């Protein structure tokens, strides 16, 4: 068959498909016969190529196939139970799958925290090696038990502002920590060590100068969510970096893609935790009026819940029954 005859024979169906595609782009519904027409079109493209028909015809058919391909293979996920499923199964499991990286990230965070905590508790000058004097003074004033600066300065207007501030600041940093992991894991390692050291130093210093009563009730509540989420983002970043460094039997490209999928689960979950943490930090932790004891008890309970969630979450029988649907 010569090209002009071929074109004449199929011109009608191509024009019809082009019209259909144009209407898709305007978000109209697809026809039931579309897959069949799409396969026929693919066949025609293959034939046209095989017979060496002219480039512009091939280009036209290829463009049409490309556009239909996008619609025929559109990814549709079941929306209904996804969030619940994620919270009950995917997130805690995703974290447990990366136990080694989570442990490494926790160590990178906790060891400097404990080291600097004890160091600053015993040695008044150590903190100035980490923070400049102005910041130290500012922080001492904020947590000064006598003036109760946090309670006095913070009105509910300011609470909403602080919420937004924590969202933007903390989640931005968490994303950054994760993303820089792809550069051979250096970013998250540095971020974890630095944040751990600063937190430990502040805690040790404030406890030593007697502001512990203000500090601990403030941090313990949202800390359960915030610190865990930071460690998790760091762990995801490390995982990404090591996929690049030590791809094992896969190609680097394949290892990276695999790691990307499992890291995303952790990043989604950690982001949700940071939103919770921002909310607590803005509206709960700073409420001096609640007294210290209730906040410490609630904060300790939050730690138990969060850690219990990661140890036990997604293990039940119900969970394993729901499993086969989705692997990534």
């Amino acid at each position, binding site marked *: 068959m010569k*090209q002009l005859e071929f074109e004449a024979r199929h011109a009608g169906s191509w024009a019809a498909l082009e019209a259909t595609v144009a209407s898709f782009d305007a978000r109209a519904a697809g026809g039931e016969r579309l897959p069949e027409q799409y396969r026929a079109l693919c*066949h025609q493209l293959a034939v046209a190529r095989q017979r060496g028909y002219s480039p512009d015809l091939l280009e036209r058919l290829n463009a049409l196939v490309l556009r239909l391909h996008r619609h025929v293979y559109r990814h549709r996920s079941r929306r209904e139970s996804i969030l619940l499923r994620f919270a009950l199964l995917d997130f805690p499991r995703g974290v447990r799958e990366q136990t080694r990286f989570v442990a490494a990230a926790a160590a990178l965070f906790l060891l400097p925290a404990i080291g600097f905590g004890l160091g600053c508790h015993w040695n008044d000058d150590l903190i100035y090696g980490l923070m400049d004097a102005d910041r130290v003074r500012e922080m001492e004033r904020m947590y000064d038990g006598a003036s109760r600066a946090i309670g006095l300065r913070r009105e509910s207007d300011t609470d909403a502002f602080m919420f937004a501030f924590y969202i*933007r600041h903390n989640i931005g940093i968490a994303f950054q920590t994760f993303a820089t992991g792809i550069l051979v894991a250096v970013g998250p390692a540095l971020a974890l060590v630095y944040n751990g050291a600063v937190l430990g130093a502040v805690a040790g210093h404030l406890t030593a100068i007697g502001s512990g009563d203000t500090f601990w009730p403030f941090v313990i509540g949202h800390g359960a969510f915030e610190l865990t989420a930071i460690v998790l983002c760091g762990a995801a970043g490390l995982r990404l970096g090591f996929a690049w460094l030590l791809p094992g039997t896969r190609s680097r490209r394949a290892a990276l893609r695999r790691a990307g999928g499992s890291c995303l689960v952790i990043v989604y979950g950690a982001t949700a935790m940071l939103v919770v943490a921002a909310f607590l930090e803005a509206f709960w932790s700073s409420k001096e009026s609640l007294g210290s004891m209730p906040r410490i008890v609630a904060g300790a309970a939050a730690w138990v819940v969060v850690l219990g969630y990661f140890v036990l979450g997604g293990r039940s029988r119900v969970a394993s029954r729901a499993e086969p649907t989705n692997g990534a």
Partner: protein
Amino acid sequence: MAEERLDTAYRVETPEAIDLEARLAGPVPRALAYAIDLALRILIWISCLIVLVWAGDPGIGLLLLIVFLLEWIYPVAFEYWADGQTPGKRLFGIAVVGEDLHPLTFGSAVLRNLLRAADFMPFGHAIGLVAMTSNRGFQRLGDLAAGTLVIHRPLPAGQVPETAAALPDAPPSPPPFPVTLDERLAIVALAQRHASLSKERQRELADLLRGPLHAEGDVALARLHGIAHWLLGER
């Protein structure tokens, strides 16, 4: 073929057993699209700033949330819900797709845009640029991890010229020698592009077939046009 090394064509074999072909978008259109998006985001930010600055602390808080959304969510939302195109990409006719040319999944949209923070380092997407120039698909690190590509969207139907209309007038005549597939393609393409190639260049190309055609210059060219008509099926 040497063409495959130099070309920005990207081929994927589909389940229908055909090779789908797409044109990869290089760093320049992508950078320009990014610049447009950046300008748009700054514009949105400034207009919000003007309105919200009057609303005190809650207003500033809202502004911070908007900054967060513009920084991290804007590209994800557009790429996922607007068919792989942020406004800047739409302007330049490029789009993000999966490596198999499927539409983006939500996860890959999130991952490629989170990792922009790494590609951006140490300034101006320098690492991303190095990554892009060192693989076949112009993929930055985020694209590699998410398994995505940026391609040129094909022209909408109707903007591609019809075959027969593009040919110059000439009586169809059979080729005086057996024609291979590549030669067929070349002869038809030469005839179809008669309007866009300079006359001198066309004569020069036709002269390559001086021997088998027993003619030169315009005569050879006219004979080739006739052969193109014949090859397309006219008698």
